[in-house]
């Protein structure tokens, strides 16, 4: 301790401004660091973090099977699907809804119903709702056969679990040819407890966006009470 005491006496002067200068330097560096850090852009909110697993919806999702001919056909150029009535209807259903479109161009109900049912079964789809729109390729004078086929199709759909079946009919003729048996469609709907959607007054070009939206609105009104 003697050494230290002596040293303390030796070291006496010169402790005036030194501490201030050191503190000022540290403060300056700290300010620079703080300024630079505050200039850093905020971290992006996007993150590769894996979110928690999806939970099953509380209500069973809608599975919609669409049967029919040209009006709802599942074929065509890729760029033609935007704006079609089935896509518009799907857009109006809850986001969990699923649609299986089995409609085929150029078929009558006699040709298409059984085949489309077979494809529905093959896909393993159990529909909760269904729409049926035949009438554009039906031969003349076969109203009884049309009625039988449509009734049978509705029965089969109900057997497969479809609680709501919507039958669509149209009386307006177009440039392509006549639509037939709309009255029969309405009668079958009444007889089977199905909903009937008449799509008349759409002008000569039902492919126009306004007409497709009108069809979609009418169908959607029956599918979503």
């Amino acid at each position: 301790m003697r050494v230290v005491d002596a040293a303390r006496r030796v070291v006496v002067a010169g402790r005036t401004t030194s501490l201030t200068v050191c503190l000022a330097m540290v403060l300056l560096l700290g300010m620079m660091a703080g300024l630079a850090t505050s200039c850093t852009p905020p971290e992006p909110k996007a993150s590769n973090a894996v979110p928690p697993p999806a939970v099953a919806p509380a209500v069973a999702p809608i599975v919609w099977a669409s049967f029919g001919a040209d009006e709802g056909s599942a074929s065509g150029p890729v760029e033609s699907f935007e704006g079609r009535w089935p896509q518009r209807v799907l857009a109006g259903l809850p986001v969990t809804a699923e649609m299986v479109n089995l409609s085929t161009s150029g078929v009558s109900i006699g040709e298409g119903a059984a085949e489309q049912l077979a494809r529905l079964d093959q896909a393993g789809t159990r529909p909760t709702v269904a729409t049926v729109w035949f009438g554009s390729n039906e031969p003349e004078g076969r109203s009884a056969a049309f009625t039988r086929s449509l009734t049978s199709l509705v029965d089969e759909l109900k057997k497969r679990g479809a609680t709501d079946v919507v039958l669509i009919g149209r009386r307006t003729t177009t440039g392509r040819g006549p639509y037939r048996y709309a009255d029969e469609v309405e009668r079958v709907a009444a007889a089977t407890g199905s909903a009937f959607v008449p799509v008349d007054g759409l002008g000569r070009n039902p492919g126009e966006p306004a007409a497709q939206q009108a069809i979609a609105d009418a169908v959607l009104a029956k599918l979503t009470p």
Partner: protein
Amino acid sequence: MSWRQAISLAGKELRRRTGRAVLTVLAVALAAALLTALLTIANTAETKVLDELAKGGPLSGIRVSAAKPDAAQVGQDDAKGGAATVLDQAAIDRIRSLPSVREVVPVSVIRSIVVVDLARRDGSRLASFADNIVGVDIRNVPNLPVTVLAGRLPAPGSTNEVTVNEGFLERLGYRRPDAPVAVGSTLSLGTTQAGRVGDRLIESQRWIRATVVGVVAQEAGEGQMLASIELTEAARTFASQPITVDGRAAPVAVRLASPFAGAFVVADSIENVGRVRSEISGLGFASSAPENLIASVERYLTVVGIVLTSVGLIALAVAAIGITNATLSAVRERRRDIGVLKAIGATDRDIRRIFLVESGSLGAIGGLLGAALGYAVAVTVGTVVNRYLVDQGFEAVPVAIPVTTMVGAVVGSTALAVIAGILPAARASRLSAREAMGSL
């Protein structure tokens, strides 16, 4: 004399000669700052460059496709596959069992018709189009070259959530900075089951809706949408069933016959990527990986790191010479003090300790200030660079706090200062009391 007493004495002496102490500390601080800033910038740049090369995935990632290897391209970074082949679960298991394979993530891809509800940038509507949805087990995304740019990833197992990529945004006239616009929009996704029976083309379509939950840069598979593998598998199951009419089934396309479109394989190290790729080729599958490019870039970056470290070390060496010079001056000026200390019983070791503590303190304070200043400089440079990158539509590069570099700068500066103080301390300790007092 204890260490505590030596530190106290050295501190008093430093405060007594403030100007010299401040200048010496400043020299050390600037050298340490240079070293810290250079290494931080170099490490950030290396991370960014390698991340860009690996597309956000692991560096040792290998893309395997459901295609046979092309003998002429085996080993090339961007090798293209040959004829389509079946990549099923058994093949995935065989790849997984290869030595040096750490992870195998199957990738499912399905072609889909896409109807977008989001308007284009100019307000017009986009016609429906066809593109691929890439399905992966979302829980495995950390092992995949996928980077979220906005929003989030789809929930694992979700069949109604997707992310889209920049190509998708470009269809709508948007750029990367506009990515948040797409988040929350919905898509209708249609999968076609088609077959030709005789002269009849029969088609069914399965349509679902999905919410866009994020925008990603993804290289896991070829497609503008990324979803959970559950979503793509449900669509693939539908599309891959053969259309049967009157008992006649249409053939299924080969691409649909393969359960997986590809897989992402992670080797246990970058050095083993070549070997794993060779073994995957032996199993009959084409693969690609940027291994050669990554190896070359890593070599260049190592050289750059060595050069930058050398620059910083030279600056530190100059600072150390400054410390030696300052301490030698202090010894000359304090001969009388040394004489008094020795006369009242201080040993050579006590004198040596006082001067070593003094020079070590200069190094430690300089190192601390320099590390902080260096990080600030690196962040400032990073800010300027990030502004440029964001203006150019690229992702900003966050500058991480280089803990190891900063600790190394402080410890290194202190050690160097102590070494620089050895000669003056030894000279001071060798002075006898009479010799020291005689200089009065």
